[in-house]
């Protein structure tokens, strides 16, 4: 009885946070002298207004969900993997690399596609392992190490696109030469969407949920994240667990990069990560370790992203508006969680012995 009551209160606070975030965004719109209702209407129309739009939302949803799934590992281990963007990029680079190696061979397309995904996962995992090694062996905080390596990854991808992997003739921001259609992921006719990538992302989050919820691995990772000193005394090799969580997260980020290459752009482009890494951080913070919530929240955030694409054209507003709404949503949810805890504490007097 009591538990369900507190769950209701928690839910009410969540809803309150969403309302506050919308109010805040409305305020921003009013200050920017834009009609709020019209802007929200455009976002809704722009995301679910037509089958093409809906498909685009799913296209954005896949990398976002993959990245969030990976980040659940590092968050559980108490780590802030801000290097996630670089890990997506390295995944995309590794995928492209393998594709370039295999595309002219006689291997069946399915093998090449699988090799591309595996390579992407390995690329992301290795780049994340670098962050992990810097932290565990070099004492470099993972936030700084990760952000630093993001810049390196960006430089690397630009160099590849304009250097060794440039299109015949001249390198351009439009990316490398597109791969032949035979080694794309099977697409839905007339859309940029592939059900295979949606399936991959859904399988990924379910895997993460099971791992974190029901296994020794998940519980030990949680213990390391909550108190690595005590977990060491309890006999858990905490540095190994931190490394593994980085590499798993990197592998998921790499898969996100791979789907962008294999299933969306069919080539390597400079902005291949599209900011999904940082957006995934927001989703992961918002869902507060509840893995399955990642599905609806990532879907919602993807819809906001796609929905705001039209804003510059229709309302002369910058499409960063979706970022304002997403950011304020996270801020208000975290804030309301703090308020809720104070409120509950007062009610039960939990702070004493």
């Amino acid at each position: 009885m009591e538990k369900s009551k507190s769950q209701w209160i928690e839910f009410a606070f969540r809803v309150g946070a969403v309302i506050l975030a919308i109010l805040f965004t409305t305020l921003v719109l009013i200050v920017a002298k834009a009609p709020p209702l019209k802007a929200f209407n455009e976002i809704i129309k722009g995301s679910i207004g037509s089958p093409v739009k809906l498909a685009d939302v799913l296209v954005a949803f896949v990398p976002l969900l993959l990245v969030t799934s990976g980040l659940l590992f590092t968050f559980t281990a108490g780590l802030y993997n801000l290097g996630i963007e670089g890990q997506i990029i390295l995944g995309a680079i590794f995928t492209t690399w393998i594709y370039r190696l295999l595309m002219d061979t006689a291997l069946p397309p399915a093998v090449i596609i699988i090799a591309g995904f595996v390579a992407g996962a390995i690329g992301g995992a290795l780049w994340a392992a670098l962050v992990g090694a810097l932290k565990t062996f070099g004492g470099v905080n993972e936030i700084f190490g990760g952000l630093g390596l993001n810049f390196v990854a960006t430089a690397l991808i630009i160099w590849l696109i304009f250097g060794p992997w440039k299109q015949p003739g001249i390198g351009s921001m439009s990316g490398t030469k597109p791969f032949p259609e035979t080694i794309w992921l099977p697409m839905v006719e007339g859309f940029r969407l592939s059900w295979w990538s949606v399936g991959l992302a859904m399988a990924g989050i379910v895997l993460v949920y099971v791992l974190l919820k029901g296994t020794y691995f998940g519980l030990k990772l949680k213990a390391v994240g909550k108190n690595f000193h005590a977990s060491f005394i309890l006999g858990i090799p905490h540095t190994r667990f931190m490394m593994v969580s980085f590499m798993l997260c990197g592998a998921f980020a790499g898969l996100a990069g791979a789907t962008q290459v294999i299933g969306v752009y069919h080539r390597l482009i400079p902005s291949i990560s599209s900011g999904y890494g940082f957006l995934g951080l927001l989703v992961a913070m918002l869902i507060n370790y509840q893995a399955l919530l990642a599905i609806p929240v990532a879907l919602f955030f993807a819809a906001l992203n796609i929905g705001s694409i039209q804003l510059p054209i229709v309302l002369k507003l910058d499409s960063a508006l979706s970022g304002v709404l997403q950011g304020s949503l996270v801020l208000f949810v975290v804030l309301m969680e703090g308020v809720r805890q104070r409120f509950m504490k007062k009610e039960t007097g939990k702070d004493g012995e």
Partner: protein
Amino acid sequence: MKVELRNIHKSFGPVHANNGITLDVPAGTIQGILGENGAGKSTLMKILSGFIREDEGEILLDGKVARIDTPSDAIKFGIGMLHQDPLDFLPMRVIDNFIIGADGGLFPNKKQAQNEFLELQSQFNFNIDPDAHVDSLTVGERQQLEILRLLWLGARVLILDEPTTGISSSQRQKLFATLKILAEQGKTLFFVSHKLEEVEGLCHRIAVFRQGEVVGEVQPPYTTDDLVRMMFGKEVKLGEKEKIAGEQAVIQFKQVTVEDSRMRIANINLDIFPGEVIGLAGMAGSGQRQFLKACCGLLKPVAGKVTLHGKDLTGKPYHNYLGSGVAYVPASRLEEGLVEGLTLNEHFILAEDQEGFFINRDKFRDITRERIKEFNIKGRPGSPVESLSGGNQQRALLALMKTPLKFLLIEHPTRGLDVESAIYIWGKLKERCRQGTSIVFISADLEEVLHYSDRVLVFFGGKVSEPLDARTTTVDQLGQLIGGKGFKA
């Protein structure tokens, strides 16, 4: 200042921690607050010092009703609390710590504060260097600093929560002398303790707490038996001493030298027998902790040899020791021993050997229930460990130890526990000894060391005494060694 507590009630969920407490303490009194763990002493003191709010009742200071919402309110009313673990800032200097709670504007007048600090400490014969860093002070000195700070802020009521935990006996004498001076100055002192002799020796009057109520107020001369009866509602006797140690040494230290940034302990030779209990005594920071850590591989010896059942473990990492049947129970429960945010059940899952990949939750729910019952832990399998009281956390820590074990290392097994719980814990430990587990433990409680050990090692400034037979050693002899008398230069 005269303090009157009127009908104070405080509940935490179903627990009525303070059930209508009424207590009058005139100015210039050292009021003893005696009671076992969970009797409601700490709750009442937290209410008085503004850390928590009472549900009902009122506090009168010099006859006027005072509403104390926060610790800073409390100090404005002149009430200061000295916590069991000093609340200071280790990397900062003494003088910065001293002025940190005061309103001094943007640029505090350090010169003046320093003079006042020196003047104040001379009143009590303290000798703290205001420019020293706090982490170079002993716990006793940090406590002195805390007292000076509170007095400087204008405290007229001082609450001391188990102040003698972790300080040396000479510092304890100094503390008691200080408290007597303060009482003569008209300050009101609350002395919270579960140590009978301290309370009897120091306090002008004693209030005995049991289950959230004041069950008796006594004035000298005190009779110990009466106090014990009031505390527990019955008489308590220590268990009989028994000798269980076997013949063949389990753990051998040969010429072992350990060192860390603070000290070097050279040439330790010790054979430990199955079922034997070795007590490590000494002032905090004399090297006993380093030795204990060396016993389980958390500190690598720089010389010598450690063998367990003939197997050479010298220099092996901690998890090799764990795998060989060694367990370590650290002193700081929530920092090193338990994982805040995990439930009791999750702790038991982690403490047992992993079976398979997926967790068998049903099996562990039963294991957890069993252990909770066996160790008398007040909590449910789903309770987060931080929601347990200190004594229950300690019981949980000990319940986490695997069976069987060859070698058990414990820091302060009964610190912060009441007598009854301590006896219970030692009963459990002795049970393990009968199964052949050898125990090495650190304790600041000399009675505990002598009563439960077979042999005792005394540490002083990085030197180790010969093993002493606990049956033929007295508290006085031990005290002298701890103070450094009898050590070869």
